[in-house]
């Protein structure tokens, strides 16, 4: 039987890995935009906070951050709940895991987004202001559409690293693809088969991501001429 009958279970794990990755990515984008905004805001306090955030995160291994935030957060939330007179909270590992990964990769995306915004000529924002656009309109109509083009290469990189980092969540007990492979290996004593299978699935996901994001980059660069030597 194909994969000793564990193929559907592994596919279920793939679905969960993709869901975790997509959720973490959305959270990371949010943190990244806030971080980039803080760094570019000109406010010294916000800039300092964002600098501390990105430096701390990038100086530590993802696994250590995961463990620190996952277990530390659990205790903190329960201490707070205790003080408020609420009962014991069992933190949902999916929520905690995706929040943590989002927080970590938000630091990397902060730098990507910051660079992308800086790549847009200042004159365009000034022109927007001269036309009487509000700050929100300038952001929506001028900055964001062009930012996508500049941000995509860095974004692609971070996304690929993040998909692979979701594998670490199996260590704190999330039911992802690696966890499924662990269970199937233990039951069938064919560990290589299962780990090789999920490695192939990760490779498929990264390959499709590279192709898709390459297409997006070309879409958003339609009006831009390439340098030809």
């Amino acid at each position: 039987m194909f994969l000793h009958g564990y193929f559907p279970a592994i596919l279920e794990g793939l679905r969960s890995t993709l869901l975790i990755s997509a959720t973490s990515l959305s959270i990371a984008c949010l943190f990244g935009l806030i971080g980039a905004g803080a760094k570019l805001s000109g406010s010294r306090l916000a800039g300092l906070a964002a600098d501390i955030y990105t430096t701390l995160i990038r100086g530590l291994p993802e696994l250590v951050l995961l463990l620190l935030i996952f277990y530390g957060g659990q205790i903190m939330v329960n201490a707070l709940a205790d003080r408020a007179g609420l009962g014991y909270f069992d933190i949902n590992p999916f929520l905690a895991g995706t929040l943590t990964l989002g927080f970590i990769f938000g630091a990397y995306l902060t730098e990507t987004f910051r660079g992308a915004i800086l790549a847009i000529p200042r004159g365009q924002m000034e022109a927007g202001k001269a036309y009487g656009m509000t700050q929100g309109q300038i952001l929506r109509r001028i900055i964001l559409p062009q930012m996508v083009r500049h941000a995509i290469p860095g974004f692609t990189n971070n996304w690929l690293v993040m998909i692979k980092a979701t594998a670490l969540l199996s260590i704190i007990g999330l039911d992802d693809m690696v966890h499924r492979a662990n269970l199937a290996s233990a039951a069938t004593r064919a560990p290589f088969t299962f780990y090789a299978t999920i490695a192939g699935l990760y490779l498929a996901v990264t390959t499709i991501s590279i192709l898709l994001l390459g297409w997006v980059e070309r879409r958003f660069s339609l009006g831009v001429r390439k340098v030809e030597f």
Partner: protein
Amino acid sequence: MIDWALIAESWPLYLNGLKISLILMAISVSASFLLSVPLAIARVSPNPWLSKPVFLYTYVIRGTPLLVQLYMIYFGLAQFEWLRESIAWPLFRNAWFCAWLAFALNSTAYTTEILAGALRQTPSGELEAARSLGMSTATIYGRILLPSAIRRALPQYGNELVMVMHATSIASAVTIVELTRTARDVYYNHLAPFEAFGLVALFYFVITFALVGLVKLLEGRFLRHLRPMSTPSKAA
């Protein structure tokens, strides 16, 4: 609040973990550097029989999680009876050997791409000059291409060193008591996450910045010729 007594008590354990982490990193990085120099040369070769297999290798390694690679080697290979009965089995049963192999193979893929990128940036005039002087291919690589490519690769290679340092934390998943495993043990024994993981975070932070500083120092030494020339003093 913070349990200082626990930190003081577990301090020696952390120092031992630090030693293990650093050894793990050193042996992985040295192996990957030695492997990636010839692989990078093959990667930029015009001969597709040389460059394509290397590309395939780096693509597969870079497209899959290190944790899965480590599991494949440490847990996975036991599936094969011929390996279990071969003389190599004591090696593959050993967590240290498997972790070293996984980290070295993984880092080789990234380092190869970094070096290949630096090799491709060689100004073509340098290569032409070397050829017109009648140097052999081996001499050209040894004297011209590699020394300058390795220098150019230094900033990115510094990032890779930091990545490998951080990656050693994954060895905690296969029973090696390095820094992260130490912290996890302290956590499980005392349920004190902030002390256990906060302290280990501090260790990693210090190592990371020591590495960054070291690479900066090397850059100052080896990329001196690329620094902007000093401008005339302001007083003039």
